[in-house]
């Protein structure tokens, strides 16, 4: 049974790793394919990013990369599986910062994210913007925050799911400003956008590619980002809301179980860094509307500790009311 499943997986994986079939015969890491666990479901943006990575990375790693989707319990199932896997460099985790650093504050986990994992690389990030309908009475972020402050619970903020890529930055933004909207979850960004267009909710969030394609229907008010992503739209820092820009963006990160051999970690980090220069990689991610803003593992490990603290504060702040 296990054999069958791994055969099937290898077939799928190898279909995109043809270039990697020239396996190096050296008896050093990696000697066999590397499994990349994604704690999210098929068809999401992480899955799509991973398909690109798993088709390019093998040429830099010298072994195929097998994508293993393990969704469930807000990403905890896959993360726990990676934490329990042998720390030999043959299992890595492709996750994002909200699963990685926020879940520990809202749930009892069988692992400790900062003790049990080290960062291999941050492959890229996605910065969302606050959006309203084109004909909305709100014309800038201050008017929304003002309204939400004066009418607690009146403003309806539609997001893409609890503790996800829109809820966290949204909640951070409002709670830093001392405002309390009603948070309405949706099953993904699509339904949340539809709710905004239908007028079910007053405000929502979206990534740039969506904002571009919906330019006639929505207007962005502020970008949750450390630097300008849409011309003419202020960032949170420029709008006078500190820290959200750095903490509220979604980082796509590759982690390895702690205790992974030095040489394996070094090899993985190098392979990911080298992949950044690959033209096909850049082109494919560009087609998906993703950036390739790489950050190396050591630098990102420092960001993680800060995230842990900030998200802890956010959860406590939300829970205190």
């Amino acid at each position: 049974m296990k054999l069958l499943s791994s055969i099937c997986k290898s077939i799928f994986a190898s279909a995109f790793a043809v270039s990697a079939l020239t396996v190096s015969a050296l008896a050093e890491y990696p000697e066999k394919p590397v499994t990349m666990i994604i704690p999210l479901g098929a068809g999401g943006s992480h899955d799509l990013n991973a398909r690109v990575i798993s088709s390019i990375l093998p040429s830099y790693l010298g072994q195929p990369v097998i994508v293993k989707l393990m969704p469930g319990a807000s990403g905890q199932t896959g993360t726990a599986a990676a934490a329990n896997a042998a720390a030999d460099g043959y299992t890595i985790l492709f996750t994002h910062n909200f699963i990685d650093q926020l879940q520990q504050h809202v749930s009892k986990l069988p692992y400790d994210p900062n003790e049990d994992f080290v960062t291999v690389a941050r492959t890229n990030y996605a910065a969302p913007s606050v959006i309203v309908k084109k004909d909305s009475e709100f014309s800038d972020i201050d008017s929304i925050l003002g309204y939400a402050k004066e009418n607690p619970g009146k403003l309806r903020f539609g997001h893409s799911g609890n503790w996800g890529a829109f809820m966290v930055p949204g909640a951070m933004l409002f709670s830093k400003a001392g405002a309390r909207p009603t948070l309405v979850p949706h099953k993904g960004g699509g339904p949340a956008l539809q709710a905004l267009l239908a007028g079910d909710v007053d405000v929502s969030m979206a990534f740039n590619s969506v904002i571009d394609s919906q330019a006639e229907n929505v207007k962005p008010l502020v970008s949750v980002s450390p630097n300008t992503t849409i011309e003419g739209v202020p960032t949170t820092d420029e709008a006078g809301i500190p820290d959200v820009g750095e903490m509220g963006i979604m980082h796509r990160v590759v982690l390895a179980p702690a205790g992974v051999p030095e040489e394996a970690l070094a090899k993985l980090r190098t392979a990911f860094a080298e992949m950044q220069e690959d033209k096909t990689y850049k082109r494919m991610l560009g087609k998906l509307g993703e950036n390739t803003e790489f950050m190396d593992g050591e630098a990102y490990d420092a960001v993680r500790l800060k995230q842990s603290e900030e998200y802890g504060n956010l959860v406590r702040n939300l829970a205190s009311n």
Partner: protein
Amino acid sequence: MLQELFEGLLLILRFDTLLMTGVGLVLGILVGSLPGFTTVMAMAVLLPISFFLDPLVGIPFLVGVYKGGIYGGSIPAILVGIPGTGASVATTFDGPALAKKGKSRKALDMALYASVFGDATSSILTIFLIGPIALIAMRIGPPELAVVLALSMAIIATTASGSLAKGMVMLAFGMFLSLVGQDPIGAVNRFTFDIFAVQAGIDLLPMLIGLFAIPEILLAVESRISAAAKVNKPEGDPLSWQELKRSRRTILRSTFLGGAIGAIPGVGQVVAAFMGYAAAQKAAPNPETFGKGDLDGIAAPEAANNAVNGPTMVPLLTLGIPGDNITAILLGAFVAQGLRPGPQLFADQGPIVYALLGSMVIACLLLLVLGWIMIPVFARVVAIPRAYLVPLTLIFAVAGTYVYRSNPMDLVFLVVFGLFGYGARKLKFDVTPLVMGFILAPPLEYAIGQTLLLSQGDMFNYIVNERPVTLALLALIPVLLFFVFRNHLFAGAKGRPGAKPGARNVPTKGG
């Protein structure tokens, strides 16, 4: 519009488009017919291939995988009684019974024709009614969805076989099981007893395979003593024109039902299949044959669940909003090609949009041809001697459950549901209401939770003042329920008459 439609069709009538659509269909059928591999998974894996193809080749290729996958689910449902997806559960009511009668070829043919007709008709209707469907989709929010789902549940519940009380118990149990895991609105753990492996909740696929495949295997092992059980039924003759003609009303009815359900975002194929089955049974002159191997019982759910496909594309094409994972992957394929679905694309590149809608119809027609070629091969499955088929089914059941999301806990659920299903058979409980409650309760709960948040604590005024569509739907409930329960009131509650619980799917002697 007609001119744009015509231009669009010309764009896709080329050899490479047709070839890749065919390749996609074959891949889709193979993946769909293996339990555990989902259509979404296959599309996500194959998406990068489409990046390197011309948009008018790459996207029809994915459409092929999609259509093939949805159709493929009916094959194991008919041949071995394992529904690969929720959408093919209703197909297991009559499919295996037909296979046991030596009519598996007819059942597979019927599933193909009904699927293709439902899909093609709904795609064509979608092309002409794209504006109105888009308007409906925008009017449906959480409160409307909640009403539609509750209503569907009530109607489908009337089709359960056996005693009403037993059906209700199973329905409630299924609804309860769906609560296990993380609460989708509040993100709080429920009924997990602090066991980490249970936090992810119970997934539909291990449950389906457990409830349907394992009891079948156990019963087959049990009937081993009967020497006659070793003899296999051949796959039988193909479906005759007469038989197809006899089901034409059922296929038409299911197609329109499925199309209407598809226009309401968030309801989906599972509900459509059950509704199609329920409606066919209510309209049939001989409802007692349903569940015992009636060809109408294949035609009804298969036409209905495929007819959902056309209208679900509308929010994606008109607004650029994907409603589910499949449309999200298609959106990825569009965006990667520099095409951004939405009003702008329609205005600027109308022919391309129509070309893609047209490719859905062409994929259906190709499916018909490919199905013709592949069905005789699949139908041979029933000719495999029992001694090999039963262990093979077990291997596929277990492997499929694990492959699905590589979670060992799912295997535990598989075994538990298998034993539960076996016990339920023996005690004459129908497991269908359990599956139904399990599938329908989460979206219903989610929609009600969203409605509560949106209404900000004042549900009554919110619905009366802001949701006229919800009010209209609520007013419809008594009328619809009267029609549905009329037969029950005047003819005595029969449910799926004749389909004695436990009788369905049980290997008969000599079969």
